[in-house]
């Protein structure tokens, strides 16, 4: 993969949920890298484990889920490498990273703000907690100072009348403004890595265009690396430079955005792209489909997770062995026996 020093390097990440009915392997050996200043898109259908992966990166997986293996190597500003996976989820170290160095933009801005605290207060709280990010001398950040920072941030993310909006409650804001406020909160402590979990799923398409443009602009301005999680291939194509395609808790394919959309190797990626109606193709004809449906989480197929629905099976071992993620062309990796064979043959 890319040779530069990544800011985040995830290796063989596993998250399991211990339920009464049995164990669900929500994330089952995920690996990827994030380079500084890069936007990595994680795409997949529901149940593919993309949101759990995101939570695992910050040690936020809730009961009954738990990290069951793998490493999350995070390179701090001073060059030291920290394995987030080995930290105590309630400990001091992870708390110093959360919000300050790695921040989160959650999916539902409505539910992600407390309804009984003003939006401004909730951001001020983050600022005061990580005052070091604004006052490297280690001094405290006064409430008034923090508030004025929030007003500036609101202006930065395009919220009109920021002075008034700081004192609003989240339910008094429109969907678009709420998401902008969320972005302001995520950026408040100048994080080096931003994790955006389906940040535009709950909002309309014209508002989505505004929010995406804002994120791109901020990313250019601050050079923050972003992990962008979505199920929308269109959003991924327009946002990411590197794409990770997930299915049933595993990475199917990974590579530069152009290769994924124009030279996809994995049968799943290819089928997914084909099955999407677009604004350009022929209309009112049958779309190519992926047969069957997602299996129940307790009913994971043996072998390659995609094999029961795959139309390009490499052979009987697809149903017995799990193909690992291997580089098949420079910079592009796939977990599929078809390409493993091709790569070995050449």
């Amino acid at each position, binding site marked *: 993969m890319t040779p530069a020093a990544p800011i985040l390097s995830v290796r063989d990440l596993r998250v399991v949920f211990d339920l009464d009915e049995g164990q669900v392997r929500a994330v089952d050996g995920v690996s990827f890298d994030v380079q500084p200043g890069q936007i990595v898109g994680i795409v997949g259908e529901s149940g593919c484990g993309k949101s759990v992966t995101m939570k695992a990166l910050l040690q936020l997986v809730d009961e009954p889920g738990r990290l069951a293996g793998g490493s999350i190597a995070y390179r701090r500003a001073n060059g030291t490498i920290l394995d987030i996976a080995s930290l105590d989820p309630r400990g001091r170290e992870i708390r110093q990273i959360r919000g300050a160095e790695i921040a989160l933009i959650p999916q539902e801005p409505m539910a992600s703000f407390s309804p009984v605290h003003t939006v401004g207060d909730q951001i001020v709280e983050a600022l005061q907690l990580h005052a070091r990010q604004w006052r490297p001398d280690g001094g405290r950040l006064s409430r008034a100072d923090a508030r004025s920072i929030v007003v500036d941030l609101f202006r930065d993310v395009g919220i009109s009348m920021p002075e008034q909006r700081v004192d609003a409650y989240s339910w008094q804001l429109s969907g678009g403004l709420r998401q902008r406020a969320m972005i302001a909160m995520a950026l408040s402590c100048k994080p080096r890595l931003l994790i955006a979990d389906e940040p535009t799923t709950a909002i309309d398409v014209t508002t989505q265009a505004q929010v995406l443009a804002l994120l791109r602009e901020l990313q250019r301005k601050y050079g923050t690396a972003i992990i962008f999680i979505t199920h929308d291939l269109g959003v991924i194509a327009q946002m990411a430079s590197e794409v990770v395609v997930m299915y049933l808790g595993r990475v199917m394919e990974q590579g530069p*955005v152009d290769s994924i*959309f124009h030279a996809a190797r994995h049968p799943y990626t290819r089928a997914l792209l084909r099955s999407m109606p677009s604004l350009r193709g022929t209309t009112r004809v049958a779309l190519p489909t992926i047969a069957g*449906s997602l299996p*129940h989480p307790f009913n994971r197929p043996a072998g390659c997770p995609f094999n029961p629905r795959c139309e390009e099976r490499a052979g009987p071992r697809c149903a017995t062995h799990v193909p690992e993620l291997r580089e098949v062309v420079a910079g592009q990796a796939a977990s599929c026996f078809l390409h493993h064979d091709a790569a070995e043959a050449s």
Partner: protein
Amino acid sequence: MTTGAAMGEARAASPALLRVRNLRKFFPISKGIFRRTVGHVRAVDDVSFDIQEGEALGLVGESGCGKTTTSRCILRAMTPTAGEMLYRTRDGRDVDLAPLSRRDLRPLRAEIQMIFQDPFGSLNPRMTLFDNVGEPLLVNGMRNRSERMDRVAELLRLVGLRAEFMHRFPHAVSGGQRQRIGIARALSTNPRLVVADEPVSALDVSVQAQVLNLLLELQQRLGLTFLFVAHDLSVVRHISDRVAVMYVGQIVELAPTSSLFARPRHPYTSALLKAVPVADPRVPTGDVLLKGEVPSPANPPSGCYFHPRCPFADERCRRETPPLRDIAPGHVVRCHHAERLELAGAA
């Protein structure tokens, strides 16, 4: 206002299956302990269109634009505040659905059916799939159980499911399967008009294509007429013959699918098309055309509802509400400057 002639009749030879005229649905806003009405949400505000027999008409717009309320009025799940909805029955009569009582509606229910967005909420969890799918048959007079069994089995096969599925309960089938069952139920009474309200938006991409294909195929095989309500422009484009675009309770543009997408005549349609992210990294991301937010239907702006966000708005747009008017054969638009503007399409 608009007349039938202006409604973009693609197949003018045959009379329309449904003619909606000046439909309005206002919801009162009440406040205080005495629940005084202090205003109205103009959810549907003067909507007119025709649906020809056998066509698929798409209805798109952002949330709160009134597309769902429009479809619920046609289904008479709600009673419209004003307007007509003339439906041509099987025996050739024209019936206005708007004023019909519960009792008079019942014989028409079988002819106009609905496919729901949420495949989890639209099936009764306490009833087997047989009871769910067979219920319209039962209440429409098919009392014989084995006869119903046969019909339900046939319907399940029609939507691509095994007949044994009918003994299951909804909790035991996947989302895509449930949506097929919802379709089977909608088709059980041999309807002529099917209103599909966001039928694929709750489904995953891989399952969405299956259901879209099924809908297309059923429409062709059974000669169904579709009113297809959705927010996803690609999906609407894929399935519809004609498309109507709604904004703040009004139709702003209605045209055959190809011309609407290739050459939109309303600035909002064009902006909406531009806002859809293209699943191709080689297509450069366009500038964001629309600033600000959708106004509240409780308090719409003066003149053209779109003028506060429109880059082409002038004094006239602020003052005068534009009528919905013909601009090309079968292409109607609600804009003062439609002829003058050169707007970008999707292709």
